[in-house]
């Protein structure tokens, strides 16, 4: 037996390793909270970062009023405004959600068009209005939680404003990676080092300050991503009318760690409930993780890994799961009943598979919840229940008395549920 750890990760002494991890990582089913560009920019400004001015408009006339102010701003070098849809999906530009306008009339028209859009299923309820920037050069800069090294990592490039992941594939040398120190964060020298590596030229001081500001933002709000694309050198008119260049955050994307939201109550308000599925909101109220899918077999499982496995086995048995649903650890009868309501809200569901491996969760509690839920059930859907682990014997007795269809193994449960769904469909 050994209590001594191996050297974790591949980071160099001091922690300012510039190489990307060999197998870096992101993704999975971690819960993250996305916020709108305008809200992200507010957080950046609160941390002292340079962001060009903007206003948020909910109506075309509000957009017009904002446009009048920015068109009349002597610093505005292009004499135009940009109007951007505020939706929580990528690809706004391609969907017609980002447009320029040269006059107040045009701004009002364009805002009306954008506010009428639905982008990837999400209605546009707000637009951001700001001066259209005269862009001299575009960079990319982000800070992200790198799971492989368990450190925060900056990713930067002098080739910003484009599909940066494509740059990473086509020209990997154009991307700079730098981890922060897990205890010290980012000392000034490390920020300068990053700025020179990316190549901000004469703007290196601003670049270093912005890098430190992004890290500060990340830590202040428990973000797991702060991404600026583009970070741009823009040209504006100075007070005497001569051109002035500065490095600014033109766009901003921030995602927050759901686990930390309770200590940032002001951020909970930034969560756009319109952009979230109503069943998702209902699920969160009962501490359930629910993702709707297209199939017809509703699944209720404890644990994310086991829930995914249950879906995989339903598919292997020839069925299609209607959802991913993790009731979490230690679920009591009321949480089980709420989970059942969520599943049954989906009219496509033709059979339900319940798979519980009791550890913290007690099988008899789940069985009671199922019996209660079935008593209240508005629509008769066949259900296959498999409960093993803690208090499985008590659960089996309850289920038998209530005449539930049960299964001993997960494979058997999947097969029975698929058969039940096909029987119901026929």
């Amino acid at each position: 037996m050994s209590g001594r750890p191996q050297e974790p990760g591949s980071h160099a002494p001091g922690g300012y390793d510039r190489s990307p991890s060999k197998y870096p990582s992101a993704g999975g089913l971690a819960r993250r909270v996305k916020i709108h560009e305008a809200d992200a920019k507010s957080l950046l400004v609160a941390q002292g970062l340079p962001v060009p001015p903007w206003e948020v408009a909910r109506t075309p006339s509000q957009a017009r009023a904002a446009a009048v102010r920015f068109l009349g701003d002597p610093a505005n070098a292009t004499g135009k405004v940009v109007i951007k849809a505020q939706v929580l999906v990528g690809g706004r530009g391609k969907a017609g959600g980002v447009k320029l306008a040269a006059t107040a009339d045009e701004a009002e028209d364009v805002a009306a068009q954008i506010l009428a859009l639905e982008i990837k299923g999400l209605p546009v309820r707000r637009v951001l209005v700001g001066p259209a920037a005269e862009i001299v050069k575009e960079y990319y800069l982000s800070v992200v939680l790198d799971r492989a090294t368990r450190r925060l990592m900056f990713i930067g490039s002098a080739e910003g404003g484009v599909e940066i992941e494509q740059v990473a594939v086509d020209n990997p040398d154009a991307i700079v990676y730098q981890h922060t120190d897990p205890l010290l964060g980012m000392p000034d020298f490390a920020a300068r080092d990053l700025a020179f590596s990316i190549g901000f030229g004469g703007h290196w001081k601003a670049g270093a300050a912005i890098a430190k500001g992004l890290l500060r933002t990340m830590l202040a709000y428990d973000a797991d991503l702060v991404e600026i694309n583009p970070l741009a050198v823009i040209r504006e008119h100075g007070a005497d009318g001569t051109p002035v260049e500065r490095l600014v955050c033109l766009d901003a994307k921030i995602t927050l760690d759901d686990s930390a939201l309770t200590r940032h109550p002001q951020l909970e308000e930034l969560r756009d409930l319109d952009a979230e599925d109503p069943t998702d909101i209902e699920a969160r109220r009962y501490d359930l993780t629910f993702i709707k899918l297209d199939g017809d077999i509703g699944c209720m499982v404890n644990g994310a890994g086991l829930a995914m496995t249950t879906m995989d086995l339903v598919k292997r048995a020839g069925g299609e799961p209607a959802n991913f649903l993790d009731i979490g650890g230690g679920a009591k009868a009321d949480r089980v009943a709420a989970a059942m309501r969520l599943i049954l809200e989906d009219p496509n569901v033709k059979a339900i598979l319940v798979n519980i491996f009791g550890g913290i969760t007690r099988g008899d509690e789940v069985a009671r919840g199922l019996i209660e839920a079935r008593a209240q059930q508005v629509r008769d859907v066949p259900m296959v229940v498999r409960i093993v682990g803690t208090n499985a014997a008590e659960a089996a007795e309850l289920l038998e008395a209530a005449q539930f269809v049960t299964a001993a193994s997960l494979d058997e449960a999947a097969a029975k549920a698929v058969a039940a769904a096909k029987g119901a469909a026929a």
Partner: protein
Amino acid sequence: MSILIGRDTRLVVQGITGREGEFHSRAMLEYGTPIVAGMTPGKGGQTALDGRVPVFDTVIEAVRQTGANTSCIFVPAGGAPDAVLEAADAGIATIFCITEGIPALDMVPVVEVVRRAGARLIGPNCPGATSPGRAKVGIIPGSIHREGRVGVVSRSGTLTYEAVQAMTDAGLGQSTCVGIGGDPVIGTQFLDVLQLFAADPETEALVLIGEIGGAAEEEAAAWAAEHMADVPKVAFIAGRTAPEGKRMGHAGAIISGGRGTAASKVTALEAAGFRVASSPTDLPALLREAGYRG
């Protein structure tokens, strides 16, 4: 032998007087785990578990009085990072953090401090570990195990139980089962556990239970290909049919670079000599196919 826990484990439970802490401490004690101390600030001098376990105000006091060398943490998320730091500071060698819901950024400096202290952290948000017949630390049901020589490592909770139950039902006992936890920032990764199993003379076969997301399975597979070539190895990856996970902006796409999918993991594991099951119940048969005779 076994890894992480064994006959020389002397356990202190941080948060032993809480609801979860007490419930699972009882189960650990019933399994035969030597719980030498409990720790709850303000309850020093009392006893827990019907007078069987002395409670201390601080971990360092528990270590001084009882020689505790392993800790299990059931402290709520707000205090759990501090509990890990306290254990590391007190010289605890192996720290299991069961707590879920800890903000990820809280764990970044904690993992580093634990590393510098020369200690090992398992978790957070993990079910713990069991060395069947010797000790169990955490919340894995003791009844699913059987003594043997298969090492099991997983980043899931209940899915681990499913896989272990399948092994036990097929008569394949385990040397140690370790749940490393599913959070973004964890103290011990797949690769670390594989290195421990490779060095354990009583572990003769390996079961790896992974999930989509991240690239820790790929990393572990590459290491196993080189260092565990002769060990019979099987794996299961959950999420083959899961919808595309939520990406972390462009940064996520850059750093994942195509890894993280079930297909990527299965390919990497198969290339490294793992037999990859399409159901946890197929694991024992595949392990036999891989030449395990235990």
